[in-house]
């Protein structure tokens, strides 16, 4: 018998003497796990699960915002698919995501590859790339708005200095959305860069050393070592960035463009906000919210299925 077993037994004896029943180690572990998980589960149930259920339920009601609820079945959903502004907003959002997600992915990965290298002041660069992520989106929106505004903005003056005519960055429907995409990449890239960096640092250096000895170039190393081993990280980034970009960033839109000009930056999340809090259409906004959740669920399930839960070819191993 080990010393530990003896001490455990000794500790349990007084309780046994009092007639108490001793829990098995497995039960105690389960209780401990439950207790550790409880705060998270409770928080998720209360602040994510419950609002989601309420949102889905409200989608079947006309809600006037003053305590009046009228059950209208699927009317909000019928209205949604006949609403040109909603459809326009959905189209804008898809366009936004199609450009933003790959853009964010490439920039973040490139930065992670860059700052993984050892060169002078690398720490400074890491900090600089991550810095926008710690600033409030409202502040970011204001700063960029001032920089891009007509007549007085920094960009206008900078281009003017070189005698280059400046477009209306936030006043042209053909440009404003891409400006929002660029600013979003700028502030989000630091966060995803860090995740990529963690993934890169998990790849053993020996692989690269062997590849170098075998004469593999930088591109070959990236293609045959980095990229395959980075797939789980890429999966995680693809999934989380899509969800967060689909449902987030409203503060940036609110400050920079308010969905304009001419609804050109009215992403679905902004449209939901507008319907709920500007027009008081809580039921309709909830129905759109539920629809967005459904889209993201389909996207997530599809991504999980295609990538075997982010493990890719593990099943074949």
């Amino acid at each position, binding site marked *: 018998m080990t010393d530990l077993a003896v001490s455990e037994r000794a500790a349990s004896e007084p309780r046994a003497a009092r007639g108490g029943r001793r829990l098995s180690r497995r039960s105690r572990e389960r209780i401990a796990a439950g207790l550790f998980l409880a705060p998270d589960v409770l928080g998720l149930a209360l602040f994510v699960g419950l609002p989601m259920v309420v949102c889905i339920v409200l989608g079947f009601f006309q809600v006037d*915002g003053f305590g009046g609820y009228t059950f209208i079945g699927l009317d909000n959903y019928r209205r949604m698919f006949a609403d040109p502004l909603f459809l326009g907003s959905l189209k804008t959002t898809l366009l936004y995501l199609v450009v933003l997600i790959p853009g964010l992915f490439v920039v973040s990965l490139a930065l992670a590859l860059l700052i993984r290298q050892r060169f002078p002041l690398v720490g400074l660069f890491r900090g600089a790339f991550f810095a926008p992520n710690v600033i409030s989106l409202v502040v970011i929106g204001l700063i960029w708005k001032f920089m891009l505004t007509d007549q007085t903005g920094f960009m206008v003056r900078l281009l003017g200095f070189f005698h280059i005519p400046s477009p209306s960055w936030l006043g042209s429907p053909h440009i404003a959305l891409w400006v929002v995409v660029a600013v979003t990449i700028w502030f989000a890239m630091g966060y995803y860069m860090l995740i990529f960096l963690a993934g890169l640092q998990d790849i053993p250096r020996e692989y690269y050393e062997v590849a170098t000895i075998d004469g593999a170039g930088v591109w070959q190393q990236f293609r045959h070592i980095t990229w395959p081993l980075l797939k789980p990280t890429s999966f995680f980034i693809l999934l989380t960035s899509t969800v967060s970009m689909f449902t987030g960033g409203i503060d940036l839109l609110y400050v920079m463009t308010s969905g304009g000009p001419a609804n050109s930056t009215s992403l679905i999340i902004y449209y939901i906000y507008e319907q709920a809090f*500007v027009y008081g259409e809580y039921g309709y906004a909830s129905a759109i919210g539920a629809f967005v959740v459904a889209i993201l669920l389909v996207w997530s399930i599809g991504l999980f299925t295609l990538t075997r839960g982010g493990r890719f070819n593990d099943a074949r191993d």
Partner: protein
Amino acid sequence: MGISRRSLFGAGAGALAAPALLSGCGSASASGRKELVFWQFYAPTPVGGSPDVVKQSQWFTKMVDDWNATHETRIRLEYVTVLGNPKLATAFAAGEGPDIFLLSPGDFARYYNGGVLAELTPYMEPEAVKDFFAPNMATRTADGKVYGLPMEIEPLAMFYSEPALTKAHLAESDLPRTWDEFLDFGDKLKSRKAPPIMLPSQQGYYQNFTWYPFLWQTGADAVRGNTSGFDSAGAKAALKLWQDCIQSGITPRTSPVPDNDAVAALGNGYGSVSLNGIWTVSAFKYRKPKFRYGVFPLPIPAGGTPKTALGGWAFVANARGRDPETAAKFCVWALGSMAKDSIQRVVDWCTVAKSDIAPRASALAAGRRAGGYDHPVMKQFADDIFPTGRGEPRYPPVVYKAISDAIQQCEFSGADPAAQAKLAGDTIDAYLTSYRGVKIL
């Protein structure tokens, strides 16, 4: 004595819960008196407020202090950013709306239809009801009953910078009277490298508010009885005017200053002309007193009628608040009684704290006697511009949005004004067939 872990957690939980519990007990003040909350965007003054903001805050504070000194139920001022924002909507959705709040005509239909506006007429003398200017009061009444008391009337006009005009070799005689002259004037400013004309460009209630007069000048309207009048030659012309301003570059697509602030725009040389409200006069007075500026009425189309929009906020009482009767009485006591103090309060607000047209005939007369309208610009507003005014409409959100989209599409996407007027007209018509609520004005 040691503190057990359990008692420490207990104390921590208590400390965390205390503010939440206390915030839920807002119906009684520290003195034990019943307390009603008044949401507005003036007082207490945010730190670093400019002089005009401080004056306005002082007016609110004095008003509430006067009430609290003479009434059992206290009023507490709570500063919120411009109402009509999510905070007010969310508060009502949660059944926690403030007892008293400020409301603009643009939001009246929603709140009235939601049944949260208390009627004020029972607490008003008939003479006092008549004392309010009818065109401005119309959007605060329903079936002849008063639901909101305006604290101000804010007509729109074109403010111009004298230095900018001088620099562009333009004189007062060059100021435009018609739409065509307005476009020519803009072209002259542009060709002489003078700062541009500032029209509100950001989508929202405010942009609509500033565009409506141009629609009305043509004789057109957004809603006529139970149908839309928007698909009309007048609407197309008004949409085309704003489109021309943007497309020709005589007005910028985005404002270089926040919130269409005319003092910042004209005072810093970013604009030569700014479409703005009478409140700009006090803003200049307190923030740039030496700056030389003037106003001219909104230009009109050939054969059109001079029109401006009369904005301004009103005190309203929450019919589902803690004490709607006292809240309603407070609104009437503050702005709508025939008592000398009540009239003087309106005068002070409109001529000292701000620069507005007093919403009551008695207060406007008293303000004139006190010299509140002696300033040439205020005199011009009171004598020439205000009489051409129509109260800001109380269009429900769907009507507002249809018009707003038409304006934006024409301005920024170069859309055909005729097609946009038709689209908006159809949207409004479809909405009106199922609309139930207060008459749309």
